[in-house]
């Protein structure tokens, strides 16, 4: 449900940047969404559709890249792909793992005229 407030931030950032860059119509937006965020792509798409209505973003294509969760073992230093449910090093079994990526939530780029 918070996808709506997240997308509100996206739309505001896009409108601000479009104004600064003299862009009157946005045609494509690319978001990167880490799998460790609690944001659901389908809910983000719905929120995008609702919030972009009546703005210069309306009708733009939304591309969402889901970012894998990458952990780094604090003991052996190896990096590995993981999921949300087991932060244990698959190489040495150490239980303390730093999250290297997977928490991101950002606008990569947009296209417009």
């Amino acid at each position, binding site marked *: *449900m918070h996808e709506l*407030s997240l997308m509100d*931030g996206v739309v505001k950032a896009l409108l601000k940047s479009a104004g600064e860059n003299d862009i009157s119509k946005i045609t494509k937006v690319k978001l990167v969404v880490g799998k460790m965020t*609690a944001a659901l792509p389908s809910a983000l798409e719905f929120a995008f559709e609702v919030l972009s209505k009546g703005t210069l973003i309306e009708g733009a294509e939304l591309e969402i890249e889901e970012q894998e969760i990458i952990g780094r073992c604090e003991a052996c230093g190896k990096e590995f792909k993981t999921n949300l*449910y087991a*932060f244990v090093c698959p190489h040495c079994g150490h239980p303390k793992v730093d999250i290297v990526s997977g928490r991101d939530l*950002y606008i990569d780029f*947009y296209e*417009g005229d």
Partner: protein
Amino acid sequence: MVKVRLASRILEANEKIAERNRKFFQDKGIFVINLMSSPGSGKTSILERTISRLSGETPLAVIEGDIYTSQDAERIEQKGAPVVQINTSGACHLDAHMVEEALGDLDLDKIKLLVIENVGNLVCPAEFDLGEDAKVAVLSTTEGNDKPMKYPLVFRQSQAVLVNKIDLLAHTDFDLDVLRRDVHLINPELKIFEVSARTNEGFEPWCQWLAEQVRNKAAAV
């Protein structure tokens, strides 16, 4: 056609305000917890017990997040703690800006502990930093022990989890061993406190842990 690279973080605006809140708490030496759980797990009851136990030695205040009502704030007020209600008007979580606004309504000069009770929801609140020192999750035995696996983010980010309604354990299928195993897979350092807000069972270790965090923060100023 123009392509504009933004690399703009969506939660950046929230994070900036959260940092401002954190600095404010740091300067005043106030330890802040962000209390999160699903609806009905007993956050407010736990808070009432905690206030009763700590208020003599630890001056504390409460920010109550609720979608529409002020029922929880009224309960806290009866316990004698200063409280501010935030009504999110439909939003499923508190954000840093709401907390910043609420701070203006509290006299924090003598406060050493601030508890922010988030909106009852295990998903969205985990995403929004409020400027707190520690996130604390509450889970009740009647909800089932599968919650950490279903909502891992909140358990990954928390420093402590209170397993409430422990007095009802025998009447449920809740498996404490499975819960301990699951939360420690997600977060090996998570502290687990088994409590009952109804009977007061288990509150001593939780309150001692909390009081220790408060003392450490105050000593660092």
